């Protein structure tokens, strides 16, 4: 019993240290990643957003579409 408790305590200690070490390593990896990955996408993001806005439907159209889609999917079953 006492021996088992000691073992549990040891696992508690080892486990928490390992979790922290592992996730700290991951943080380092993420910081490296951020530094070395050339971020092309960030600039291109607004462009993509714009083209999305063009095809933005009106609220009424959206309601109609949603209803139609639901009906369509409902009738499939």
């Amino acid at each position, binding site marked *: 019993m006492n021996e088992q408790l000691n073992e549990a305590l040891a696992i508690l200690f080892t*486990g928490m240290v390992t979790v922290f070490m592992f996730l700290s390593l*991951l943080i380092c990896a*993420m910081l490296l990643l951020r530094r070395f990955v050339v971020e092309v996408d960030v600039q291109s993001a607004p462009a993509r957003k714009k083209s999305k806005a063009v095809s933005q439907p009106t609220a009424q159209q959206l309601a109609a579409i949603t209803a139609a889609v639901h009906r369509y999917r409902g009738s499939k079953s």
Partner: protein
Amino acid sequence: MGRWEVLWNSTAIAAFTWGQAVMMVVGLLLLYLAISKKFEPLLLLPIGFGAILANIPLAGFNDPGGLLYYIYYVGIETGVFPLLIFMGVGAMTDFGPLLANPRTLLLGAAAQFGIFATLFGAIALNGVPGFEFTLKDASAIAIIGGADGPTAIFLASRLAPDLLGAIAVAAYSYMALVPIIQPPIMKLFTTKAERAIQMEQLRPVGRREKIIFPLAVLFLTLLFLPTATPLVGMFCLGNLMREAGVVDRLSKTAQNELINIVTIFLGLAVGSKLSADQFLSVQTLGILLLGAFAFSIGTASGVLMAKLMAKFSKSPINPLIGAAGVSAVPMAARVVNKVGLEANPQNFLLMHAMGPNVAGVLGSAVAAGILLALVG
């Protein structure tokens, strides 16, 4: 007339045991929680139904040749079902908020204290007569504190299959109860002023970072913790499929049809472990107790870690977000947001809490790997 006797003997009424009747009520209770209270219905509904089926006398669902026997044997004993669910969850996870603020990984680490403290607690409970948890049992119970269903089922199926039913039910129930369990603990360890702290907007994260991240996680795991690679590997595969942008049809299927099919089967198989002789014991009470303990400790340690980090940080950190480190995605992050809004109506913490929230998923998969390495 002998035929009537045959039929009567084939009814369950004669064969019913008390234990089976009680387990049916447990099954019904799970269905009630799933349907009326919306407690993790996707899992608790099939689990509850499976519990009812498993306890029907003479029907043999759990015997070789029975439906639940096959499902359990194919999907849980092999570990395949929880791994496929984890792949789907990976495909549904956006690591953006975590990548924008890598430090929040430490919150996901701290919250795992709930797991390891519960392991200690389970062994300590052996002092009470009636409890005789082995280290494997204790580890499987402790993983409830990971607040992550597939991880709990995977680890329990490896270390303590007999306790699988109780552990899975406890894990999903407490995940559903997060909005009730966490707020008092969060308020206990923070002042109103702390809860009102607003955080800076997150930087946008590029596509490349998101693609490379799951691979980085995989490589660190395979280097330092190979026992965690089944869970982490499938999670990262799902996430890579999501972010790669070139296999959207696979990613969509992993997130929808595949995970749905596996969820039905996984639920039934977990339910099949809710048989009277395994579930109706004082151990189950202990497991439920330890589970609540695990969630509470995990929440508290997450919040305390966040307070510690705030001391050393240039940018403001709201300590509430530490509570999301237990995972229970996305419920815990929503709870953080709600408690934050109560203290300050301008305080939108949801995205900030998503970082520690997904960090908690990684953290408990890592913890599961550690437990497998140490006691498996």
